[in-house]
C-alpha cells in the first residue's frame, strides 16, 4: 500500500515535469495524484466506474482547494490528479481489439472506458459547481498558519470579510 502511494506520487510528479508544472507545486501535484489513486484502489468499490467517479470527486476537490490556497490555475493540480484515472488505457485496448477484430472484447472494454470517461466528466462538473467562496473559506484556514510575506495582505482581507 505504502509502495503504491509512493509510486503514484513519483509517477504523478514525473508527469507534472513533462507538462512543465513549476517546481514549487510538485509536492501538491504528487499528493493530488497519490490520494486520487488511493481512493481509486479502495477495495470496496465494486466496479471500475464507481471507483473512477469517487476518485475524480476527491481529485477535483483537492485540486480546487490547492488552487485557491496556492493562487494558481486549477489545471495544474487537476491534471495531476486525473492522469491515473483518465481511461486512456481502456480506450487503447478498445481500439486495439477493434484492429485485431476481437469485437466482443472491444464492446465490453469500450463500454467500461466510455462509462469511466463519463463519470469523470460528471465528477468534475459536480465539484466545479461548489462556489469558490467555500474553497476560499477553507484556504483561509490554511493561510492563518502561514507567515509568508506575499500572503499577508490577502489573509488580512479574508479576516475583514
Amino acid at each position: 500500500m505504502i509502495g503504491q502511494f509512493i509510486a503514484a506520487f513519483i509517477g504523478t510528479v514525473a508527469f507534472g515535469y513533462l507538462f512543465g508544472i513549476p517546481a514549487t507545486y510538485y509536492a501538491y501535484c504528487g499528493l493530488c495524484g497519490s490520494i486520487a489513486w488511493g481512493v481509486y484502489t479502495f477495495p470496496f468499490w465494486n466496479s471500475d466506474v464507481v471507483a473512477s467517479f469517487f476518485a475524480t470527486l476527491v481529485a477535483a476537490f483537492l485540486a480546487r482547494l490547492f488552487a485557491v490556497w496556492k493562487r494558481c490555475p486549477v489545471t495544474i493540480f487537476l491534471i495531476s490528479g486525473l492522469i491515473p484515472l483518465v481511461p486512456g488505457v481502456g480506450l487503447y485496448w478498445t481500439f486495439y481489439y477493434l484492429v485485431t477484430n476481437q469485437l466482443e472484447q472491444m464492446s465490453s472494454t469500450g463500454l467500461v472506458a466510455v462509462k469511466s470517461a463519463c463519470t469523470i466528466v460528471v465528477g468534475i462538473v459536480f465539484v466545479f459547481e461548489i462556489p469558490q467562496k467555500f474553497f476560499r473559506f477553507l484556504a483561509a484556514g490554511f493561510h492563518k498558519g502561514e507567515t509568508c510575506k506575499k500572503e499577508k495582505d490577502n489573509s488580512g482581507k479574508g479576516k475583514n470579510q
Partner: protein
Amino acid sequence: MERNGEQEEYEREVMETAMRAGRLLLGHGAEIFRVEETIYRICRHYGVHSCSAFVLSNGIFLTAGSREEPGYSAVRHLPSWETRLDKVAAVNQLSREIEEKDYTLEEVNRRLDQIQAMPGRSGISQILAAGIACACFGFLFGGDWGVVLSDFLTGAILYIFVLTAGPSLSKITNNILSGALITICCIAFYRIGLAGELRPLLMGAILPMVPGIPFTNGIRDLADGDYISGSVRMLDAILVFMSLGAGGGVAFLLYHYVLGGVML
C-alpha cells in the same frame, strides 16, 4: 484630433497586450474561461471598457469600440499548442499582480516577453521523466521489477522518438507511430524475458501518450458552457486514443502473423 489619435494608440497597445496574454494562455494549455477572463481583466484595468472577446480552442477574436472609445479589432489563429503549464501559471500570476499593483503597460509587456522566453525542459530530463513516469505506473498496474525496468526503457525510447521525430510529423501519424513503437518495444522486452507480463507493461508505457490536458480541459470547457471548444478538445483527445490503439493493434497483428505470437 491630436488627443484622439493618442488615445487610439494607447487603446491599441492595451488590446495588443491583452491579446498577447490571451495567446500565451491559450497556446500552452489553459481553459477558454481563463483566457477570456484574463483578456477582460487586462482591458478593464487599463481603461478599455468596451472590449469583447470570443475565444475558440484555436483562435481569439477581440474587438473594442463604442461611442467614447475608438474601434479596434483583431483575430489571431493558433494552429497548434504545446502543454507548458508553467507559462499558464506565470501569466495567471501576472494578471493577478496587474490588479493588485500598478504596472505600466511597458512593464506588463516586458513580463510577457520574459514568460514567452521561459526555457523548456531539456531533452534528457524529459526522457528520464517519461521513463520514471512509465516505470511508476507499470508498478501501479501490478507489474513486477522486470516490468518496471522495461517500462522505464520503453518510456525513454518513446520520448526519444517523440522529441526527435515528433515535431516534423503530423499529429495523427505521430500518434500511430508512437502507439506502434510502444507496442513493439513492449513485445521485445517480453520476448527477451525481461518482463514477465505484457499487460501491465503496455498499460504503463501507453500513459505518457494519453492526452490528459485536452481531455481535462475539454471537460472544463464543456462544464463552463464553451461547447464548441470543449467538443473540439474532446475530439482531439479521442483522435489520439484512436491513433494509439490503431498503431498498437497493427504492431500486434504483425507480431502475430510474422513471428506467430499470441494475441492478447
